[in-house]
């Protein structure tokens, strides 16, 4: 693969982010990213999207109160 276009890069962005591309393809992608600010921005926001999804879930768990007492009681009751 001598060069890639935006459509090719974005189509395989998940593999790029997961570092699943072979070395030659990755280098080609890296070269495209050097010359294409739009794809650089897309890549950054794609990674930020994943981070936001995880971050929001983490924050929700941090802020979560204990399970509702009625649920705890219901579960214990089912067992009895």
């Amino acid at each position, binding site marked *: 693969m001598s060069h890639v276009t935006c459509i090719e890069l974005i189509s395989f962005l998940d593999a790029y982010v997961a570092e699943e591309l072979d070395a030659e393809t990755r280098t080609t992608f890296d070269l495209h990213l050097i010359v294409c600010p*739009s794809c650089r921005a897309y890549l950054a926001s794609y990674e930020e999207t994943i981070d936001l*999804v995880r971050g929001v879930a983490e924050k929700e768990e941090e802020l979560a109160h*204990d*399970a509702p007492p009625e649920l*705890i009681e219901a579960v214990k009751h089912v067992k009895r």
Partner: protein
Amino acid sequence: MLETRYAYSMQPVAAARPDERGLVERLRAGDERAFEELVDHHAAPLLAVTRRILRDEEEARDAVQEAFVAAFRSIGDFQIESRLSTWMHRIAVNCALMKLRVRERRREKDVDELLPHFQADGHQQQSSVGWKESVEDVLQREQSRALVRECIDRLPESYRVVLVLRDIEQLPPDVVAEKLQITRDNLKVKLHRARQALRTLLDPHMRGAT
């Protein structure tokens, strides 16, 4: 990127802690108090998991109840080299997915309109621009977190669930593909499309920051 570490994720399984071994032995012996301890320790995080998958409070609570009943019934199968939290997480995910399967199948829109569009020469039709604020700053504000959550919930269900199971619960691809009864290739495509669609939904807010 943020370091994500969930006690309830399917990350490499660590051995049961010494205090867990004792609890497991008591559970196997039918100790009522041990079951109550299990519920007290695990109900809240499991409810968080089932809420994320089902987005329905009543169903999420039912799934947690069912998970505990299933766990108690199959405690004999629990392998002591595993972590109780990991094992319970797997059971809760299964119970939540069972509920999803029996929900009335709704026709869902695809996400095509939320994917990037390209010109004939392969360039993006609309140039992407960087987002204004860091992820860490966005996560500090409740309003912004609510917006991200709202955007996730706007994804068609089959895409939302893939995103939740892979990017939040961090279940391995093989496990998710099996649970959702789709091929691994299909899962890969779906996850990429879900992330792209969510990126598009977030983009107008994140460009100017929320």
